[in-house]
């Protein structure tokens, strides 16, 4: 299977493909490289770093795939100095360099802005980088690819730091070479903060800590090598009595808070817990009956019992199936996708319902064979057809590794080479396809043969290897994908369990221990490494038990902390000193509105009463403006970030004045209508509304306000009194609408 050498994704703005794009944003115009002791300028070790630092060889500039810019091509980030030398010195009849008068070299004239340059000013004439290039040309533009000492290591000094808020710290980047040489490359290295809200870093490596407490890392990148500086920024507030430690999660979270001096909020009340956990585990509001029963339950273990109830329910499977199928790209592009999408969604959902171990789930997906109806995970191969897409999705989704960059060049932030990329692709090299009866669908099988994939640059045929781990020879009869699955499920695998627990942690805590959750690398360390390691260990030991993972998370007091900040932790966004509220996702919110208004949303060709969280694919976004406006994903990406969780004006307008929401409020069989006709005292009816919306009773002031509003006399536009039945209906519609548009309703908190 030929692998396209093009680099179509760099221009993409999607964060899923953002690793390369992020680099592009880091511009640098000057820097002072250290020169070799003999005064001779090295192309590999002096000139190329200057070009890199100046941004000449970025993906959007002269390293752009397919010819660079204006016929001048450089390798991305200077990873291929020999090629760069060729382009710079020999190509174009040597017109880019002027040996007699280096300052008149086209290269320098353009970079210094002396002649028009679409890329702007890159190397001011006064900059040290300019001098390096000028001297190199003056010395005869020597190519030293074969002789120059190789860069063998990059270190940052210091490696760790305990920094106060508003503190500053100068970093030093040190390069080590194969000849034993050491250079300070701070001037040419690139620095980048992993959390710009916590700390910024200057081009020269000066770290400026801002106001937020927590952990922050600065990545230093130099010629394909990376190093990282980890800083802890304590708040230093007095941490009094901590909530009881219920499991290892609490131990790790509270220890971290203690270290950083961030006092946590207290454990939340029962109503908050019930609503929060039901939304997070089952994707729905508790019913008023459930809320009433839970609040009345005096049992000490009632929270744990409720968690068990939720995990047993099909709602859990429906909710998490929606999450997984979007990530696994269960998209409907054509009516002929319908059966396969339903089958695939159902397979995911039923697997979750049966609590199929996660390793087995992934194995069935990766190594699927047969027909879609007979073995629905085969549908993944319909959606993700090319081996390169397969490994990229698998790596990002199941291993938390964004390996896309390594298709065309060495990964800029990571240790992944092109060989690593293609060796991973080789696992998918023997996927055979036969046409099926259904248009657009193939039967998938293992095609006997020795699996290989060809590195597009070196043309070497590579045998399967899993991210640096050699895999024993795979016989032609054996499906290499099963070996990949074996490798993943091995307890010592450093990626598989970590990626999942981090992903699930983020589901419940709004922020991954590593952020983004699918970009796990040495240069992006977790905010609480001990916790991540403990979760990983527990998950592996449980036999990859997904329900077990959910259970251990939501039973912890760390999960059950109140969302209300105390005097110290309002600014904490990273250390879980309180629950971080989050807007309900599109489907959950729509179901919640239906539940509160006592209506159903009608989805095309599905049984009445089908909940939005149970929708099998993205196609329903077309018919539901609500789902679109509130950011339900289209299944285009393996990144959770495709789901838009931010708020916008359209959402507010939709809630305030859309026919959709108005229709629900005024529905002839809706809750407002029913309550208006209900014979119970108004107080009981208002209590019902609060139980449904917030899983709690109204506070006295709320009750007073609501009853007062309901009792207000109503008049028509002409000033005539409205009949009591009509007035009651309007009153309850207004009340429901007011609850529905409140933050307490729209957010999980």
């Amino acid at each position, binding site marked *: 299977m030929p692998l396209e050498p093009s680099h179509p994704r760099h221009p993409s703005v999607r964060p899923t493909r953002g690793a390369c794009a992020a680099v592009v944003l880091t511009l640098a115009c000057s820097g002072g490289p250290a020169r070799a002791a003999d005064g001779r300028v090295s192309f590999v070790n002096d000139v190329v770093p200057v070009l890199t630092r100046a941004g000449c060889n970025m993906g959007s500039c002269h390293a752009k795939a397919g010819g660079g810019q204006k016929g001048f091509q450089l390798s991305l980030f200077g990873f291929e100095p020999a090629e760069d030398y060729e382009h710079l010195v020999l190509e174009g009849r040597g017109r880019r360099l002027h040996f007699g008068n280096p300052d008149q070299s086209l290269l320098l004239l353009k970079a210094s802005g002396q002649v028009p340059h679409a890329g702007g000013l890159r190397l001011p004439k006064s900059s040290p980088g300019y001098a390096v290039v000028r001297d190199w040309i003056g010395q005869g533009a020597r190519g030293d690819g074969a002789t120059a000492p190789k860069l063998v290591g990059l270190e940052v000094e210091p490696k760790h730091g305990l920094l106060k808020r508003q503190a500053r710290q100068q970093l030093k980047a040190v390069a080590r070479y194969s000849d034993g040489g050491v250079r300070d490359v701070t001037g040419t290295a690139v620095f980048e903060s992993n959390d710009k809200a916590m700390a910024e870093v200057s081009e020269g490596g000066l770290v400026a800590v801002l106001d937020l407490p927590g952990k922050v890392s600065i990545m230093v990148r130099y010629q394909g090598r990376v190093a990282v500086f980890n800083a802890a920024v304590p708040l230093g507030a007095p941490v009094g009595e901590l909530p009881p430690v219920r499991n290892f999660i609490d131990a790790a979270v509270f220890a971290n808070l203690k270290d950083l001096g961030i006092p946590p909020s207290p454990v939340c009340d029962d109503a908050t817990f019930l609503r929060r956990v039901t939304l997070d585990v089952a994707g729905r509001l508790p019913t008023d009956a459930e809320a009433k029963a839970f609040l009345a339950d005096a049992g000490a273990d009632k929270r744990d019992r409720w968690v068990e109830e939720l995990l*047993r*329910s*099909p709602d859990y*499977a429906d909710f998490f199936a929606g999450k997984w199928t979007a990530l696994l790209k269960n998209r409907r*592009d*054509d009516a*002929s996708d*319908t*059966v396969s999408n*339903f*089958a695939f969604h*159902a*397979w995911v959902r*039923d697997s979750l*319902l*049966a609590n199929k171990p996660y390793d087995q789930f992934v*194995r*069935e997906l990766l*190594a*699927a*064979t*047969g*027909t879609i*109806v*007979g*073995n*629905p*995970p085969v549908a993944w191969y319909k959606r993700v057809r090319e081996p390169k897409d397969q490994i990229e999705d698998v790596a990002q989704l199941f291993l938390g590794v964004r390996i896309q960059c390594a298709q065309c060049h060495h990964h800029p932030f990571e240790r992944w080479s092109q060989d690593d990329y293609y060796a991973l692709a080789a696992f998918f090299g023997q996927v*055979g396809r036969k*046409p*099926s*009866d*259904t*248009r*657009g*669908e193939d*039967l998938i*099988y*293992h095609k*006997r043969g020795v699996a290989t994939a060809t590195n597009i640059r070196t043309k070497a045929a590579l045998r399967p290897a899993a991210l640096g781990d050699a895999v024993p020879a795979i016989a032609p*009869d054996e*499906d290499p*994908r*099963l070996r990949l699955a074996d490798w993943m499920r091995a307890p010592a695998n450093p990626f598989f369990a970590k990626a999942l627990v981090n992903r699930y942690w983020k589901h419940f805590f709004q922020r991954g221990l590593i952020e983004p959750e699918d970009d796990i690398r040495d240069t992006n360390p977790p905010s609480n490494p001990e916790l991540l390691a403990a979760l990983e260990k527990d998950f592996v030991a449980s036999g990859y038990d997904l329900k077990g993972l959910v259970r251990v998370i939501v039973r912890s007091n760390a999960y059950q902390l109140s969302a209300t900040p105390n005097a110290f932790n309002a600014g904490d966004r990273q250390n879980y000193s309180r629950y971080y509220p989050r807007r309900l996702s599109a489907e959950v919110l729509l179901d919640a509105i239906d539940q509160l208004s006592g209506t159903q949303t009608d989805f095309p*060709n*599905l*049984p*009445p009463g089908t909940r939005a969280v149970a929708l099998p694919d993205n196609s329903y976004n077309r018919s539901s403006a609500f789902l679109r406006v509130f950011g339900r994903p289209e299944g285009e990406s393996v990144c959770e970030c495709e789901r838009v969780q931010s708020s916008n004006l359209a959402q507010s307008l939709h809630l305030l004045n859309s026919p959709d929401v108005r229709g629900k409020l005024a529905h002839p069989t809706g809750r407002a209508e029913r309550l208006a006709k209900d014979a119970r005292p108004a107080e009981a009816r208002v209590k019902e509304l609060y139980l449904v919306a917030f899983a709690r009773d109204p506070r006295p002031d709320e009750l007073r306000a609501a009853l007062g509003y309901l009792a207000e006399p109503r008049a028509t536009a002409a000033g005539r009194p409205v009949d009591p039945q009509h007035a009651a209906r309007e009153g309850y519609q207004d009340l429901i609408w007011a609850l529905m548009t409140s933050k307490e309703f729209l957010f999980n908190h």
Partner: protein
Amino acid sequence: MAIIARHLRRAAAAWVVLLGGAAAAPAQSVGLPAPRLLTTMPMGGKAGTTVEVAVTGEHLDEAGDLFFSDPRITAKRKLDATGAPVADRYAVTIAPDCPVGLYEARVTTRLGVSSARAFAVGALAEVVVTRPNRTLAAAMELPLNSVCNGAVADRAIDYFVFQARKGQRVVVDCAARGIDSKLNATVVVGDAAGRDLLVERRGGVIDFAVPADGRYTIKLHELTFKGGPAFYYRLGVWEQPAGTPIVRQPSTRAVNSFSWPPVGLPPQAPLAEVEPNNDGPRAQRVTLPCDVSGRFFPAADVDVYEFEAKKGEEWWVEVASERLGLPTDPAVLVQRVVKGEKGAPDTLTDVLELADIPSPVKVSSNGYAYDGPPYNAGTSDVLGKLVVKDDGLYRLQLTDLFGGTRSVPGNSYRLVIRRAAPDFALVAWPLHMELRNGDRNALSKPIALRGGATMALEVVALRRDGFDGDIELAMDGLPPGVTAHGLKIPAGKSRGMMLVTARPDAARGYANAAFVGRATVAGRPVTRPCRLATVAWPVPDSWGEIPSPRLLADVPVSVSGTDLAPLTITAKSPVVEATAGEKLTVPLVHRRTSEFTGDKIQMKAVGAGFETSPAFDLPVQADKSEVVLDLKALNVPPGEYRVSFLGGGVVKYRHQPEVVAKVEATSEKMLAEVKSLEAEAKRAADEAQRAPPEKKEQMTRALTAVTARMKAATDALTATRQQLTRAKDAARPRDIADIIVCEPFTIRVRPVEKK
């Protein structure tokens, strides 16, 4: 990209519509009306009982008897209180000795015998869904050990509840696709509150270990929530003794199973697989020939057999698994083993790799245009020859290419390694051709002939173990007035044709024919049955619905007796003689009973020796024509050849025009009666008005009576007039594309006379 592709597809579809509109009259359909039995409710019954069955279908005009492929199932028309037959309802009696299984149900109609519908005979109590059960509250109570007949509605879920005790083993088995239903069933067993416990969506069975005494629910729906009468099911729920194997409800057989088993193979293999045999060191020793049953279990199972073979031996290796109805894809690898000396590893040399048995004829791709039959006579099973080049030890490794991650204990196989036993197996289906893009309607038509019609069946042979000879095709036991001529499958080829012709004057009739192929194998005459295949539903749009073919149990042939073929083409003489190398002129006689659109039909010759003859235009409006065949160009050697011509034409078809006159006459008669009653009523009214007081009441009663009769007669007239409108509408000429087949004739090619 996907969006562009979608637009292009839409644009292409628009073109097809436009072209279709330009070339033919509006609303052209494909295939003349054929009687099709589409549903029976219920879809089966218990042996030893009588069950009332309602039928629906297409073109079941003047439906008469309902009958079955086994004489132990009989049916009578249901009669109403007055003794008149109730439309579409039958009392079906299943003899106590009728074995559990599937049978074909058919109805006799004005157009002949209908297509078949599977009818199940079971051993459990039968129930039928009689009221909507689409919510948990309205769930239907299902007794254990029963089979429930129902159909899911569109966007609906059918709910059932059953009682079970802790420790019971309850099997929930839904028959649907296997009994011709369109339902891809999703079956969910839930707790009393309807919360899901176990789900089955791939046509499998639910084996439910009851966790506690109580009520349990079953939810049943289509995978994508489609529904309607065609989405019917038989939901079986029974208690299964612990430790016993589950026997599922019977299912129809896939087309490719026609080639299994080979003649003479014992029902049970004498040898069984012994695990572990997953690799060379643990290979299971066998001696050839051998016949082993085994299974692909657990996931990624590898079964290795080891045997000695001698140089020059030839062995045929056949594996059946997909043809047993399983979702498997067996693959065989044979390697020669040279044992390593002094602890060195064995050396393995690949000798033979076998995977699928390809279809002998090109199978339809899943494209829109018709490019071959959707019937796949090939299979993912294995059949091939092992030629032994050296004495020694050999290892045969058997795997399931679809089994990498699936652990299904029931995925079994049968492995046979035998000396050559040359043979063949045959399967046939109604011939189809491109008549309109995407339309596969004709595939599901029964062999129900109009007078003067010739119907073509495509016949395909799977040749076994090197058999390479001619296969002559024959159909015997036909109804009076019907003849059948086989166009043989020539040596080395896989495709032939059977042409079944009804004389124009053939009376209404039906017979279960014997359809066979005859060949000489190793000097001995061999006769093998030819199985008939069909598609369960008419498919007017192959992109909207994928045809689902299956084998039929028998070969019914029937004649309408009233309807005539729109065009009968016969050779003027049944035998045409010519000398090799000459041009031969075949005079044809046309007999039209319908108008046709256009003035010519492109026809093509079929029959060994003449298939490469160029297509020609038949002047469809003329009463006769001539076809010239160039024997020199065709290079036909002397001999006797059976030949026919076929092509697609557009008939201006009028459905039952004779009914119009009949209903018109009835209508006139009724009008006269109404008029007479009107007069009578007027008289009665006058008399009642004039009647003396003592007779007033009597006269008024008389007036009421006659008014009632008048009203009844008026209602009847209205109904008859509506019937007339319908009949006139049906009799209005409609453009229908269909296959036109010339009655086969013989060409006798004489050798060139030597001077």
